[in-house]
């Protein structure tokens, strides 16, 4: 029989005050298999631990039970002590006779009896324990970044510059995300593309970054340190290595469709480059709009004019499989569609724009080459109304949350408008101005003081077209006056939504979503960049509305977190995992269904259950489900529990 040693701690009077520790030790000394039992005033002290170490060595103990405070406090202490004496750490168990006994009872004899039962049941547990070593798995020291916006770009660069290979996946033909559509950025008003494109180029040139644009993550399996990813690479039908950007193809392409980069303010051809600075710098034939491609009898005009034969109609979608150790999700945001805004005309008035459209109007590279003109008649608008919180902070009809960046970009818009149209007038309807951030409040003040922007506190109840004007009805809640403005243009600060497709991706990655559909973090305060799935991290607006500096900061944070995994040769994992007795298993698969971690599968060979020890967290739900006791968690087997029950009942 295994030789067990018992060590009863007084914890000063914390335990000894209500539990007769001497009696506990004396009783346990008579318990089958117990060859040593002593008590000491502070077991966790160095001399206390010394007693344990000595006893293990002198009495040749196989098992140790320390009756003391909650295992949450000193289990590690005593397991380490046992290890120092040459025992496997799992040969040490804690009997919690303080929190669960001495501190909650007054009647000394009764408390003592209970302490004895608790300790006996710990003896039974430790007797059934196996010696276990932590499980370790090698780490695949590469990372996957999903989303090529500024957050994804930043994360990818940080990881690559730390020396790890990165696969950056972007579903659009070019990286850059929404930032590449912006004209200027608040509060510095520096040109968005000017600060973004160098980073985009760095990505494209970085030896450690494998850029996969026009690609989508299809399937993710595996676990922290060892994910397997399937990526769908959609065909562009243009070989970027050959394409010399001569742009002849677009001139001959007969098909014109709305240009999504310009948010429909202009059109593009079926073969196109998203924007001049696109990375990769190459063209794409969008096969949804080049009907002939689908029928494989393309009109061939683009191919005819392409001197370098970059066009290949036979390009097929391919599935690329990659292995990575960590994943950063930076899928960004979309604007809440204008069509949802009944009160603002369902987006059917051409001169009612959303924020991004207005950015394009301001942008030097935009459809109007930087002139602010009304889409309807290309006249310069003299009165422009900006409406904040359009779709935000409206739990009844739209989004409950604040989109956070609108206050700032609306101020920016108004300013930019004044800089373009000096004699124009800008009005801003707002609920509150939220300008927390470095230089932000000052920025808003500038809009009011230097550019004479009129801030009206209140909501716009209705807008409608009348004789080429857009009539805006609103209320000024400060003066209480009804306000009517005959505007030439209205700009809606639309709420931010998780980017379309983010939800399906979250499913594939087993990531949780918050109530608004953004990706949920592991802990709102203490683990803001970690997802609920270990090994996966969040960056940018996919997690919540943020502005560029925040997105960048979080991206770097996520990269740093990923490095904590990638920098290790191996990952360690608790070995107290489920184990299958093959001869009892009938392969019913009930354990497979209940496992919260998909850690159990049925083997092809004989259909019996098999545990992936690295995925298993040892919760034991499988044990209770199995009708045959064919699956047990190591060191808390049904056998152990059965003995513990008897001991707990004083038997």
């Amino acid at each position, binding site marked *: 029989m295994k030789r067990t040693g018992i060590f009863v701690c007084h914890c000063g009077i914390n335990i000894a005050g209500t539990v007769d520790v001497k009696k506990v030790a004396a009783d346990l000394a008579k318990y089958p298999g117990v060859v040593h039992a002593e008590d000491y005033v502070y077991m966790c002290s160095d001399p206390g631990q010394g007693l344990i170490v000595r006893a293990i060595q002198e009495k040749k103990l196989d098992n140790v039970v320390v009756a003391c405070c909650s295992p949450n406090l000193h289990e590690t202490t005593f397991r380490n002590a046992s290890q120092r004496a040459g025992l496997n750490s799992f040969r040490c168990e804690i009997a919690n006779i303080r929190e669960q006994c001495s501190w909650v009872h007054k009647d000394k004899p009764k408390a003592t009896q209970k302490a004895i039962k608790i300790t006996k049941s710990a003896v039974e547990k430790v007797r059934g324990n*196996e010696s276990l070593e932590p499980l370790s798995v090698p780490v695949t020291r590469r990372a996957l970044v999903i989303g090529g916006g500024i957050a994804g770009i930043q994360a990818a660069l940080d990881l690559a510059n730390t020396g790890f290979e990165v696969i950056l996946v972007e579903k659009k033909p070019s990286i850059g995300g929404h930032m590449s559509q912006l004209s200027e950025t608040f509060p510095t008003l520096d040109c968005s593309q000017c600060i973004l494109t160098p980073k985009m180029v760095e990505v494209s040139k970085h030896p450690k970054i494998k850029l996969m644009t026009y690609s989508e993550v299809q399937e993710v399996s595996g676990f922290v340190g060892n994910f397997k990813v399937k990526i769908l690479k959609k065909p562009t039908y243009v070989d970027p290595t050959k394409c010399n950007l001569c742009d002849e193809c677009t001139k001959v392409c007969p098909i014109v469709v709305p240009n999504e980069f310009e948010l429909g303010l202009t059109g593009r051809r079926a073969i196109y480059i998203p924007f001049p600075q696109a990375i990769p710098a190459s063209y794409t034939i969008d096969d949804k709009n080049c009907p002939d491609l689908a029928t494989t009898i393309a009109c061939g005009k683009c191919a005819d004019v392409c001197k370098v034969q970059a066009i290949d109609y036979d390009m097929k979608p391919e599935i690329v499989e990659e292995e990575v150790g960590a994943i950063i999700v930076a899928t960004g945001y979309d604007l809440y569609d204008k069509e949802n805004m009944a009160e603002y005309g369902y987006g059917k008035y051409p001169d009612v724009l959303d924020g991004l459209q207005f950015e394009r109007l301001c942008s030097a590279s935009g459809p109007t080459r930087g002139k602010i003109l009304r889409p309807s008649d290309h006249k310069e608008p003299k009165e422009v109304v900006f409406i904040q919180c359009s779709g935000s902070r409206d739990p009844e009809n739209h989004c409950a949350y604040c989109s956070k960046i609108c206050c700032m970009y609306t101020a920016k818009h108004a300013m930019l408008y004044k800089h373009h149209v000096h004699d124009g007038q800008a009005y801003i309807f707002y609920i509150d101005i939220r300008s927390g951030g470095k230089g932000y409040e000052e920025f808003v003040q500038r809009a009011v003081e230097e550019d004479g922007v009129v801030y009206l506190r209140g909501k716009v109840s209705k807008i409608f077209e009348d004789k080429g004007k857009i009539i805006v009805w609103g209320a000024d809640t400060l003066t209480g006056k009804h306000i009517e403005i005959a505007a030439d243009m209205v700009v809606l600060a639309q709420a931010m939504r998780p980017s379309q497709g983010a939800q399906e991706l979250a499913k594939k990655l087993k990531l949780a979503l918050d109530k608004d559909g953004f990706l949920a973090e592991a802990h709102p305060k203490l683990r803001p960049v970690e997802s609920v799935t270990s090994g996966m991290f969040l960056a940018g607006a996919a997690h919540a509305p943020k502005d560029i500096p925040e997105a960048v900061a979080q991206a770097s944070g996520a990269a740093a977190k990923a490095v904590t995994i990638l920098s290790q040769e191996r990952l360690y994992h608790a070995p107290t995992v489920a184990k299958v*007795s*093959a*001869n*009892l298993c*009938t*392969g*019913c*698969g*009930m*354990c497979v*269904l*209940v496992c919260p971690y998909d850690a159990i599968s*049925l083997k092809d060979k004989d*259909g019996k259950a098999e545990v992936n020890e690295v995925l298993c967290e040892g919760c034991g739900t499988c044990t209770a*489900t199995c*009708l*045959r*006791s064919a699956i*047990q968690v190591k060191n808390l*087997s*049904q*056998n152990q529990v*059965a003995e513990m029950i008897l001991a707990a009942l004083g038997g």
Partner: protein
Amino acid sequence: MAKIEELREEARRLLRDGKVKYIIGYGTGRDGWRAVPIFIRQPEEADRLIWNPTCVHNLSRFLADEKRRQAREKKPDRRPVGIVVKGCDSRAIVVLLQEKFIRRDDLVVLGVSCEKTGVIDEDKLTDKLKGKKPEKIEFGDQGEFIVAAGNEKIAVSAGELLAERCRECRANFPVIYDFLTGEKSPRPVERPFGSIERMEALSSEERWAFWKNELEKCIRCYACRSVCPMCYCDECVVDSISLAVTADTTAEEKAQKIKWVQKSPEISENFVYHLVRAIHLGGRCIDCGECERACPLEIPLRFLNKKLEKEAKELFGYEVGFDVSQPPLISCFRDDDPGDFIR
């Protein structure tokens, strides 16, 4: 009306064409009127098959034997097995498929419909005949039983002789089959759980007195477990009566064998045995009533094992043995499962 000739013809065909290795069906027992399980291999044996109100057995129980046999044989014949099933038996097959114990294509299911009636309770028949020895029992066209005894034929209304479980049956024709003889006309049952409700109506102490009196009789011959199609485990957890020990079973695994119940037929041990059985049948028992029929001491085990079928339905809206694709009862949950019993 189910026609035995149709069944025999199908059986003959399957055996002739070698589509099945053998067919598990009902034949006439030595006494000349009771059905017994038979296993036929030759086309000509098809004529031995019968279908009458004494076909009480749930033959799906024998699928476990087939599986064990295949495990032992060096070159097992992997052709499917033909099996004759009633509605209740077919629900057992559904559960066995749910639990991947058998593969659908290992079976050719020959369904027979009980239509308006079902099978008889032998005790009821004995009382009815007052000691006269029955010679033959058949289904009448009007859903009655035709009993031949002592050179006379009498028609007895089904109600008089029907087994209790048939009165509460919710599958009077097979829910899964490859061949079917007889009508697929559902038979409405007012109170599918009437027997359980009557038991529930008793006070806690009355129920205890009832079960104590019944389970005291148990001699642990394990007929209930042995006859049950759901008790296909190689080793039962309550006791290692059928120790699944193989050459590669480790010493630890042997040491891990827990004696949840003592071998002694003490009242406490009998209770734990039957409780474990009942809970393990939760969401699996399809009320074929075989445990009760097989029990030599006539312990009303149906009352115990059917209870959780009722609870599964009432608490979780879970129907046992109708849908192969649904997960087993305890390997799924609904967010709004009742929790009112929890503090």
